[in-house]
């Protein structure tokens, strides 16, 4: 992986931040946490901001004096958008670093690679990305938003403004497949219909014929759950075929990979999205975070993404639980998190839901325009209703599976 200027600056700043820490730590007297996020390959658009926010969170905590008086040491791995490497690094970090917690995985497929490995290795796992919901395993905390929190709000919003006929394009792996099912369910619940659903493997970059198919079907709106660098071409080709503005496009993945920064604004203006976090959110807590983060990573940092914020908020929850438990011991920390621990985060209040190990958060419907995400509507304190319909770790603590939606 190329070490670019920004990473170099970030690392230097992190090092600078760490030198302010009281130097009382002995080497053995530190807490190790691991991060495994794609910083190269097709998913780097997602992984880089996440890795940066974990670095930031660690540096911020160390600047406050660490945790339980110990310095936090971050072990970073770059699985290069390759699930095989996720398996390798998860095993390796669990065995070699013996971390107190692992923050890992962008795609749902990578989570399903890491999850059984860390469960077997008895290592606490935080999966921090928005995803399709349904994971039920006491060793994992999923701090990202799930379809009942975002997809439902966005489908309702879009159908109220456009019409009843939907066309779904989605990435061809478990996230895309299950999210597409949720979109279909919410559309049907609203009395609408889904004209067609198309799935694209992550390396597909030519959408010409799909766009013609969409034109032939003539839906009221297109729902996109496309993922990754290659899929960014869809938005570009959508505009090139003259479809932008003709048919509304809504997505819970657009902007998650900085699509609204990487693409010129005239190629996407007007897409609707729904996320937990927007960098533009008002409120002192968020303003301070954006300022501090830019101090460390530079003013020209593209955007603090929702995925990055997910990891930051997960770190806050973990740190709060460690302080509450007074130890980094895995079961003690899990029990502390299961008390329904809550932190005041940049996106609003974030609370752990004890029964599902998911989080209760605010979500925001917004419009992408001119490299910004402009808030349209806010929904406060949304519970993970999809997962709680199927998962109850209080009564079944040994449950270990991912439930999928039945249509």
């Amino acid at each position: 992986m190329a070490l670019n200027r920004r990473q170099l600056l970030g690392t230097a700043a992190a090092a600078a931040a760490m030198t302010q820490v009281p130097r009382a730590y002995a080497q053995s007297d530190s807490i190790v946490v691991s991060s495994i996020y794609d910083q190269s390959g097709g998913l780097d658009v997602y992984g880089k901001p996440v890795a940066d926010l974990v670095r930031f969170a660690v540096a911020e905590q160390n600047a406050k004096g660490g945790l339980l008086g110990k310095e936090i040491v971050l072990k970073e791995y770059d699985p290069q958008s390759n699930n095989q490497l996720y398996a390798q690094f998860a095993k390796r970090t669990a065995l070699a670093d013996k971390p107190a917690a692992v923050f890992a995985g962008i795609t749902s497929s990578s989570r399903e690679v890491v999850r059984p490995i860390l469960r077997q290795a008895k290592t606490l796992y935080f999966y921090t990305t928005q995803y399709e919901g349904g994971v039920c395993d006491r060793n994992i905390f999923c701090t990202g938003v799930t379809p009942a929190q975002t997809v439902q709000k966005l489908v309702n919003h879009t159908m109220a403004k456009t019409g009843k006929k939907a066309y779904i394009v989605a990435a061809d792996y478990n996230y895309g497949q299950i999210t597409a099912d949720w979109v279909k369910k919410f559309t049907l619940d609203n009395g609408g219909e889904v004209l067609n659903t198309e799935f694209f493997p992550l390396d597909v970059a030519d959408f010409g014929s799909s766009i013609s198919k969409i034109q032939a079907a003539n839906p009221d709106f297109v729902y996109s759950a496309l993922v990754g660098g290659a899929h960014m071409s869809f938005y570009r080709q959508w505009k090139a075929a003259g479809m932008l503005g003709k048919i509304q496009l809504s997505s819970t993945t657009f902007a998650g990979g900085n699509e609204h920064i990487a693409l010129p604004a005239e190629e996407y203006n007007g897409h609707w999205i729904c996320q937990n976090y927007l960098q533009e959110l008002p409120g002192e807590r968020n303003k301070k975070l954006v300022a501090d983060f830019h101090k460390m990573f530079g003013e020209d940092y593209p955007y603090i993404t929702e995925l990055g914020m997910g990891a930051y908020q997960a770190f806050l929850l973990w740190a709060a639980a460690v302080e509450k438990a007074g130890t980094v011991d895995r079961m003690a920390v899990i029990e502390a998190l299961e008390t329904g621990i809550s932190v005041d985060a940049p996106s609003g209040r974030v609370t752990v839901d004890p029964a599902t190990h998911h989080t209760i958060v605010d979500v925001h419907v917004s419009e992408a325009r001119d490299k910004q995400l402009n808030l349209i509507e806010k929904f406060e304190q949304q519970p993970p209703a999809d997962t709680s319909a199927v998962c109850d770790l209080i009564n079944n603590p040994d449950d270990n599976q991912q439930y999928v939606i039945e249509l």
Partner: protein
Amino acid sequence: MDFASILAIEILGSIAILVLISIGLAVVFGMMKVINMAHGEFIMLGGYVTIFGTTHAGLNIWFCILVLSPLIVGLVGLVLEWLVVRHLYGRMIDTMLATWGLSLAIVGLMTMLVGNTTTGISTPLPSVAIGKFSTSGHVFFLIALATFVIIALACLFKFTTFGLTARATTQDANMVANLGGNPRRIYAVTFGLGAALAGLGGGALAPIIGVIPTIGITYIAKAFITVISGGATVIAGNLAATSLFGTINQLFTYWYTPIIGEVALLVCAVILIRLLPQGITGRFFKGTI
């Protein structure tokens, strides 16, 4: 009716893309019996030249696609021919392996230089409406460009001294040398031409795809298979193979998914090679160029 015309355009577009990504390889294979596995990386480099030319240097996009990309990539091709390929003439498998090494090295080098991130530019062409459908104007550009490239190459091989000598070299390099020609230089120029054509293809495709250092892998297998299936006759073989594969790919993409389209293309190629081990032109269109 509208749908039929849009489908026809998409099929022509698909054929044009195949022509643009494979014609350089076809020239090198047909003229020199060299299979250049770094061809996909030449396409990738062409894409980067166009992207950096327009975004960083602020040059006109058409200048970048049509002049700068082929020029720079052609020069890269000449250098690599001088360093590596020239020492392996006559050893088909070794050339293939050595250029596969070059392919990996170029991907690695570009990853170090620009990072493993998708970049792209948008096409300046407006969309074109056909009834209730509309499609990207860039498809028409690709079709026109592919047509032009085929005609220009045919003229080059048929009507110029270089073309005559090159075709003679293909048939009997020693005889050409005896008659005062210079086969080595012919080979070098041909390899450079193949690289330049790949650069042109990469530049032309840049506005519709995202360019990333590993993108060559997406194209090399397809280009490679098209060329082998076409056989040793450069232009007729390439036209026959691209028309067949482009149509099959696009139709299956319409009926099913892009992946089934890709698989249909590959399966068709495997069967074709089994039936016609010398390629399409080994059996048909003999005596053409």
